[in-house]
């Protein structure tokens, strides 16, 4: 094992560490997930507060109606924005966070956003499960979207 590791160029090891550092750790429990179809249904009845915690250029292209931009939560600036929006909300409000920047297990934003809001005491927090990306799993499915804003 050790000898095989020695064969790996040091730069590759550094690269692998860097890549894992920006990948999600998947700490959001399954019980906290909400599927796109379910959220789309809730939009018609009693919409929760929706926070988009991904990159701004995604939000500007297309986002879920009523969603507030509060990201990207892989950065201190984004976390500050998220906390500022969250401070306006009741801790027992129904809140859904979503990103969709990349595949779920690669997302650098959702875990940080979920952890931050949980620490603030949000008891009805859900995370929209987007398996691949916002385009394929929400827009292409025909769910409601606001574009070009």
């Amino acid at each position, binding site marked *: 094992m050790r000898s095989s590791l020695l064969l790996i160029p040091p730069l590759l090891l550094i*690269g692998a560490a*860097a*890549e*894992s550092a*920006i*990948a999600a750790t998947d700490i959001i429990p399954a019980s906290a997930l909400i599927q796109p179809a379910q959220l*789309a249904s809730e939009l*018609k009845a009693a919409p929760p507060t929706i926070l988009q915690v991904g*990159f*701004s*250029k*995604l939000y*500007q*292209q*297309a986002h879920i*109606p009523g969603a507030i931009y509060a990201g*990207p939560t*892989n950065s201190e600036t984004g976390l500050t924005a998220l906390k500022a929006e969250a401070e306006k909300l009741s801790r027992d409000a129904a809140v859904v966070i979503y990103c*969709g*920047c*990349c*595949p779920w297990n*690669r997302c*650098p934003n959702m875990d940080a956003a979920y952890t931050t809001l949980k620490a603030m005491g949000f008891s009805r927090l859900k995370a929209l499960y987007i398996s*691949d*990306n*916002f*385009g*394929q799993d929400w*827009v292409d499915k*025909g*769910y*409601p*979207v*606001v*574009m*070009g*804003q």
Partner: protein
Amino acid sequence: MHRRRFLLGAVIVGFGNTSVQALQKLTPGMVPPPFSRTGLDGKPVDLAAFKGKVVLIDFWASWCAPCVIAIPHFRNWQARWGGHGFQVIGISMDDSASEARATATRLHVNYPVVMGDAKLAIGYGGILGLPVEMLVDRDGRIVSIWHGETPPVIIENAVRASLG
């Protein structure tokens, strides 16, 4: 056309609402929208200037793990086939150029990188997740589009086929 579509502003679509304009998806055979921007290195980057080459357009961001993993492959292909009419162009969807520049420098990117924005992305059918790669042939038409994490060998085979 693309400018007009962007200026439509906020529109809501979905649940069978067909009265508003949706994103115009790009498909193989179409000509990608032109763009001319200043690269991260300060040099001009004009897509039209690469007509006659096989061009791989890569939408990426520094925080996107699959994007960053793919870049060394693109760098190697640029080095290997750049003299045979192949050109990679990176379009960063990072919020700031400094983040994109730092990553491009760290990964020794050897091809032009420009900053993307929502207007450019909408013109390209919406970049609603990363990475997105688009291969354009020597006639300036789209050959393939890949959304999400794609095995490099798939893109490489398409590049080889286009180079002939």
